[in-house]
């Protein structure tokens, strides 16, 4: 699990964000079983109460589901998965727009630069935390 927890954002939100990215990119597949709360807390070295809160929140948002005493699973609801993906894309685009606007880059120039640089940067994982 490569997630770097920063100390200023609420930890539970960072955990949810991480799961959303994994769901959107298909690393976590629909219906896939996920770690227990304690396993997650242990892997990420975070407070178990925080892991619990992240799971509760994800359950409420329909990102994961739990049947009885079984381990929680990733949602099979394709509408939700699609929404997650769109939400992440929109977030990234808005961040991009805000940063190019702050240095007065016209739309055309920005689009040109995107086209030019998009292929050059195949990793895509950089700065992804």
């Amino acid at each position: 699990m490569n997630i770097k927890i920063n100390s200023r954002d609420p930890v539970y939100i960072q955990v949810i964000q991480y799961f959303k990215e994994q769901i959107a990119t298909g690393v976590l597949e629909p219906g896939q079983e996920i770690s227990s709360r304690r396993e997650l807390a242990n892997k990420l070295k975070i407070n178990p109460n925080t892991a619990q809160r992240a799971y509760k929140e994800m359950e409420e948002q329909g990102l994961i589901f739990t049947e009885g005493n079984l381990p929680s699973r990733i949602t099979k609801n394709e509408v939700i998965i699609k929404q997650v993906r769109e939400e992440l894309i929109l977030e990234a685009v808005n961040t991009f727009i805000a940063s190019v606007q702050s240095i007065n880059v016209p739309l055309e120039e920005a689009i040109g630069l995107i086209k030019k640089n998009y292929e050059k940067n195949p990793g895509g994982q950089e700065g992804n935390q």
Partner: protein
Amino acid sequence: MIEVKDITKKFGRKKVLDGVSFTANKGEITCLIGINGVGKTTILNAIMNLTPTNSGEILIDGEKIHRETYEKITFIPDAITMLPQMRITDAMQFMKDFYHSWNQNRADELISFFKLDPNDRISSLSKGNTAKVNMLLGLALDVDYLLMDEPFSGIDIFSREQIADVFTSHLVEGRGVIITTHEISDIEHLIDKAVLLNDGVVLREFNAEEVRENEGKSIIDVMREVYQA
């Protein structure tokens, strides 16, 4: 819940605690933060009734501490209190003789968790392993509350990580922990509540996740504000 209510403590003329109040919930990790000499250890001693206070009150689950309370709360001091010639297994036997709440299964589990050899003598252990044995002797008690005094100080990074792992395991789950430290970075994401102390008073008591959420600040940001204001 442990409730510390307005306690004061003087050593001679020196006021070490000057009206300290805070609470620590069961199932949560509460961290007392402050530089050396602000009274962190004195507070733990006071909770355990190992030192008399001059005024104020301390309640554990609504009761003042009494004989049976020692079966549901334990104190892990910053240095091991067992005799150096004892083997780890002797130290465990010693605890078993004293406490009904001693849980040998959990002790055995901790031995393998920390990769210790029960036949080693305390005097032969490295500093890091001594700290782990010290933790083990407290953690193996079936108590509701654990007080830990500076469990991370003076030990290497891998031992610190191993000890930090205890906090996310079932070994601590559901119990109330009060931990003191002057070095927060090892456990920044592990604690529920921080209590900032200075000169025998509580400067601020806050929930770490709430401060991140409502103010966008890390624990260290808050410390900077409070201590350098």
